[in-house]
């Protein structure tokens, strides 16, 4: 390494430190504490200098690392580990992943907490796969995906509480409603692309949330909907003491009653729903409409000149993506038994988009890795309370530094024909 390189990277790190100081100074350095009557400012300069020092050091290491990758083993091995994940290996990963997911509830260390986290990760994986159709394949940046999640959840909750229909009837209905809303959003944004599309979808997500808050007669406003029926195991409810003449899950199978039964059932339910989403996406990619989505992402004018109807293509992408969002929403509603507009804020959309983008646009396995990484890390640091969002942010920064195009950036071809194995 040249001497001037070191000096240059050192200067650059000092500049980074300056930015860090400007940021952390007011945010961390000045802490307001209420004592008696008023608010007093307690400075915390020690913490600030520690953070600034860390930023300078980190930046310096990254600089040196990008100048000569071999010198700092930590970074280069880490980044090569990431880049060695190709789609070929991803296939093995997928199979082991599914097997692991199937046996997961019965592993010795699996407890209630692990199951809850796993269910949450799977929900995000399903949402990520659903959004991947819109963002990853069709290339339509949708920042309001949570709206369909909300529509699915509320449709399920309202139908189930009003008519008392079972989960298995409400689920497809909720999906249909969400798909309908997908088309509803799709129509006005057909002519928009890129930033403009993102803004309108962002607005759509907020509109749905605000309607949910204000349409008190139907949605019960900010109070939300309570007492949403739990799913039953093909008609067998998960109850400790079933009603007279009714079988419940544990009496039917002659098991000791345990709350874990329902959790495990919910786990498998979301696992199956997520895998259906994945299977559907993998199949549709090989059909003309799926290929048209990807072509539309690449070049809309070329699509028009080849006779692809962009209107229908975009609307199907919106509708199908929304439908899976709706399915995930129904699952959310039945799992929580209570929903309110608070669960469907913009941050949810942002997390789902982050999962798709960080996973590598259009990559199914990437979505899984990104969900585990982002949601898992945030969960591990849950004990740190307000600092856990730092972990979330840090995870995003790490992926962007080492894999700027997403964890799995390679697109898998949909056709390999004529016995070619190249």
């Amino acid at each position: 390494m040249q001497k001037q390189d070191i000096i240059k990277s050192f200067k650059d790190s000092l500049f980074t430190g300056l930015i860090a100081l400007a940021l952390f100074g007011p945010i961390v350095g000045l802490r307001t504490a209420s004592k008696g009557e008023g608010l007093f400012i307690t400075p915390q300069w020690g913490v600030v200098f520690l953070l600034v020092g860390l930023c300078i050091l980190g930046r310096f290491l990254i600089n040196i690392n990008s100048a000569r990758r071999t010198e700092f083993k930590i970074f280069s091995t880490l980044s090569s580990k990431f880049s060695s994940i190709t789609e070929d290996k991803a296939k093995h990963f997928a199979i082991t992943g599914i097997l692991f997911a199937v046996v997961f509830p019965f592993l010795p260390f699996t407890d209630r907490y692990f199951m809850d986290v796993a269910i949450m990760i799977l929900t995000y994986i399903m949402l990520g796969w659903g959004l991947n159709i819109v963002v990853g394949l069709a290339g339509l940046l949708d920042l309001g995906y949570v709206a369909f999640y909300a529509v699915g959840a509320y449709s399920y909750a309202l139908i189930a509480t009003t008519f008392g229909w079972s989960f298995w009837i409400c689920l497809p209905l909720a999906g249909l409603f969400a798909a309908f809303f997908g088309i509803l959003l799709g129509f006005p944004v057909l002519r928009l692309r890129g930033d403009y599309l993102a803004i309108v979808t962002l607005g759509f997500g907020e509109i749905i949330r605000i309607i949910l808050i204000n349409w008190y007669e139907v949605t019960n406003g900010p109070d939300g909907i309570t007492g949403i029926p739990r799913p039953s195991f093909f008609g067998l409810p998960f109850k400790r003491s079933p009603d007279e003449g009714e079988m419940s899950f544990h009496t039917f199978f002659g098991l000791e009653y345990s709350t874990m039964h329902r959790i495990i059932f919910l786990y498998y339910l979301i696992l199956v729903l997520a895998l259906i989403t994945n299977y559907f996406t993998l199949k549709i990619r090989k059909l003309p409409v799926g290929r048209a989505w990807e072509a539309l992402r690449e070049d809309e004018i070329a699509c028009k000149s080849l006779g692809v109807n962009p209107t229908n293509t975009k609307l199907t992408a919106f509708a199908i993506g929304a439908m899976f969002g709706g399915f995930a929403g129904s699952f959310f509603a039945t799992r929580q038994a209570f929903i309110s507009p608070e669960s469907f804020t913009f941050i949810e959309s942002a997390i789902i988009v982050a999962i798709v983008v960080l996973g590598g646009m259009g990559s199914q396995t990437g979505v899984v890795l990104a969900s585990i990484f982002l949601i898992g890390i945030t969960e591990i640091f849950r004990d740190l309370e307000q600092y856990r969002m730092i972990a979330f942010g840090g995870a995003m920064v790490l992926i962007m530094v080492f894999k700027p195009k997403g964890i799995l950036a390679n697109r898998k071809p949909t056709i390999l024909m004529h016995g070619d194995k190249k």
Partner: protein
Amino acid sequence: MLKISNVETFYGKIQALRGVDIDVNDGEIVSLIGSNGAGKSTLLMTISGVNKARNGNITFNGERIENRDPHKIVDLGICQVPEGRRIFSRLTVEENLRLGAYTNELGKHFETDIKEVYDLFPVLSDRKTQRGGTLSGGEQQMLAIGRALMSKPKVLLLDEPSLGIAPKLVNQIFASIKNINRDKNVTIFLVEQNAKKALELADRAYVLVNGKVTIMGSGQDLLKNKDIQAAYLEGGTKN
């Protein structure tokens, strides 16, 4: 076969085409030459229905098409190879071709159609699993033409197939355009800045200046025309 009469196209308030009249007969190769900004690409986009004509009409085998959607026009058998090739760079060569067959009854005769394209451009066959973006400019142009052929067009609209391509490959591409016209009986409407090549290839040709056709005639006549020689053929060296 394709009849363009008095077509006027606007971009907002700016008029790009000022009453264009062009006839393309069955089986012909017709070239349209003109400088930058003359409106050549606009005319092709208007025929394809991507831009809409404000006045005038376009008929294809007697049917009015100026108000149809682009995908309906492709269904009728008019397919465009757009300027700058616009291949789908992240998709493989074969996927690109498959998309060309999108309207062609969803690729019913895909196997035979694709074989014809591979026979015409053998290099594409060697590269069928490669991503479109990894091909050279000339190969991308072949892919773009092949992709358009997959829709089994009756008329092929070509927009600047020589743009940014090595001279040797340009010759090869023009030769294959001739082949497509002669062997596959596809009518060709070619828009080019490379006037010499375009006129040599054409049965008939038109010159477009500022959105209006100024000169028309057979390709050979136009090659000998003094004005054209000055403006388009040797203009760069002699003026």
